[in-house]
């Protein structure tokens, strides 16, 4: 909690229009439909720290990631990186500088690398795009250096992505993220397509690089154990909203929001073997028509009238009427 925030996300929302075509709507007398993928999300990421965003499908975590790197404009709210706004118009030079410092590692290493490009060209692209090397020799040297940083060989330069395994491709993606000396890397499920032994290699690599270069990560994952292992602070999302946010250790030790508790109970973890089967009810509702009030209320054992009508605000790191009112919720 001592660093300065690199990333400030304030009241960010993103809506998608999922209406059917105009003519169909006219005939069926249907209104337009909006999918509110992300609603009023606020968080900060401090320098050289890892902020983990967890949630199940439909929680909006990937949409947040895409907005933070600037791939999607938010419908409302502001995103500032190092004090420079991604959302408000500003001098183009500022944003060019900003873009150099943000990078993203995607979930699927089979889709995120151009299959027709050699590794050399893939990694050198940000170097070239931002004009970071004044000659080809410098660029080549930089590529070699990056390859050895992520545990690949200089000889891998001239190979194509299909010659690599999933884990190696993810290393290439990380090398590319570092190529422009990015300081802030958004990792969207970086290991969920990988086997556990390879996942461990990549997570260790991410940690080593973070220590070495003071990188800041926004880690998006559905895997609570991965997030616990990597993150300093964690935000838990449910149906587009952050329901709990806090220090990673505290959140795992004493989860407060009923959803966080349910999620932790549900994870099959080798260290919690033998505990009784969790008592979990219901499934995630459709994000197109989320329940009114607190979106978790139909599944919540502590829900009462207020939860059904009023959206709980995120106060003191948790968005839950039962916790705020000090109702028995244990």
């Amino acid at each position, binding site marked *: 909690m001592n660093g300065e925030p690199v990333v400030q996300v304030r009241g960010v929302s993103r809506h998608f229009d999922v209406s059917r075509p105009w003519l169909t709507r006219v005939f069926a007398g249907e209104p337009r439909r909006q999918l509110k993928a992300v609603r009023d999300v606020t968080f900060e990421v401090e320098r050289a720290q890892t902020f983990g965003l967890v949630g*199940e*499908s439909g929680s909006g975590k990937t949409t947040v990631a895409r907005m933070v790197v600037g791939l999607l404009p938010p419908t409302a709210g502001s995103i500032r990186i190092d004090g420079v706004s991604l959302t408000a118009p500003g001098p183009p030079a500022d944003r060019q500088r900003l873009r150099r410092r943000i990078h993203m590692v995607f979930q699927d290493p089979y889709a995120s690398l151009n299959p027709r490009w050699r590794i050399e060209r893939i990694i050198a692209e940000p170097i070239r795009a931002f004009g970071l090397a004044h000659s080809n020799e410098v660029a080549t040297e930089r590529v070699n250096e990056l390859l050895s940083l992520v545990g690949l060989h200089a000889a891998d330069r001239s190979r194509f992505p299909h010659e690599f*395994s999933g*884990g190696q491709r993810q290393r290439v993606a990380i090398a590319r993220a570092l190529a422009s000396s990015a300081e802030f890397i958004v990792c969207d499920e970086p290991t969920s397509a990988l*086997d*556990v*032994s*390879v*996942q*461990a*290699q990549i*997570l*260790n690599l991410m*940690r080593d690089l973070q220590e070495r270069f003071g990188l800041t990560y926004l880690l998006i994952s*559905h*895997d*609570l*154990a*991965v997030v*616990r*292992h*990597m993150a300093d602070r964690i935000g838990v999302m449910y149906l587009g909203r952050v329901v709990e946010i806090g220090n990673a250790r505290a959140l*795992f030790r004493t989860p407060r929001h009923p959803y966080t508790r*349910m*999620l*932790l*109970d*549900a*994870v*099959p*973890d*080798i*260290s*919690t*073997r*033998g505990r009784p*089967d*969790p008592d*979990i009810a219901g*499934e*995630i509702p459709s994000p197109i028509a989320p329940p009114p009030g607190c979106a978790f209320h139909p599944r919540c054992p502590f829900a009462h009238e207020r939860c059904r009508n009023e959206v709980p605000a995120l106060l003191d790191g948790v968005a839950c009427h039962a916790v705020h009112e000090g109702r028995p919720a244990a």
Partner: protein
Amino acid sequence: MRRGVLTAIDGVSFDIGRGEILGVVGESGAGKSVTGAAIIGLVDPPGRVTGGEVRLAGERIDGLSEEEMRQVRGCRIGMIFQDPLTSLNPLFSVGDQLVETMRSHLDLSAGEARRRALALLVEVGIPAAEERIGAYPHEFSGGMRQRVVIALALCAEPELVIADEPTTALDVSVQAQILALIKRLCRDRGTAVMLVTHDMGVVAHTADRIAVMYAGRLAEVGPVSDLINHPLHPYAAGLMGAIPSLEQDASRLVRIPGAMPRLSGIPEGCAFHPRCPHAFDPCTAQRPPLIEGGGRQVACHLYERPSEAEQ
């Protein structure tokens, strides 16, 4: 073009008792799904089973004709796959699919089959089963579809259920419900379950015994608690250390160097030796046999001498 014969699984032997859940775990390419497919006679061509035998309740089922095998599948062996939509016909209501499956394997009247289908849907936890029995697969959510698939797998009272990554496509909160359901139903009915998964957490919470596979071979087989707390095989130990945990703090995860070999390049001797921190002379030359002792089995040269001495 490359030609030649690849060995996907090699000399894999295990048994599953009535009402027991055997978790078969391994990373991609370990051969766990092929093992399941070999048992039910569904190895995709050009693959084929070249040796060994499969016995169901003492009776060999590996040499049966296609027609006989079809009767065994669905009737005596039920199947649950990762994607419920591969098991469900989109053109028939779930009730019709259950009724048809039951009537083709069991001697039941249409009314009786319908009554049992409804009871089964209630048992697997479909809310308002009475109204939803006529619904089509696309009208159900992912978790509910998997419940229907479980009902379908169990409807002809099979002796064995093969569940191949049954919860991999589901969110954790739904996964927990489905695993509890499989566990409860199979215990109650005394059905043997082969649970194929890559997720150690899932087997740790669900299975009675675990078989760890590596490069198409069994590395270690043993009771869940032994295997998780004291894995013998270096690969099993590496796998346990590589998994981030919710309870224990580890600043670094155990790192198994390298990756699973391709089928075309399985190393001589022990398939794990190039990645193994304990590899010594015999590992590169001789393939380790599966050594038994104390209810556990391990295929590793490290344990050869001591286990002989013990016996």
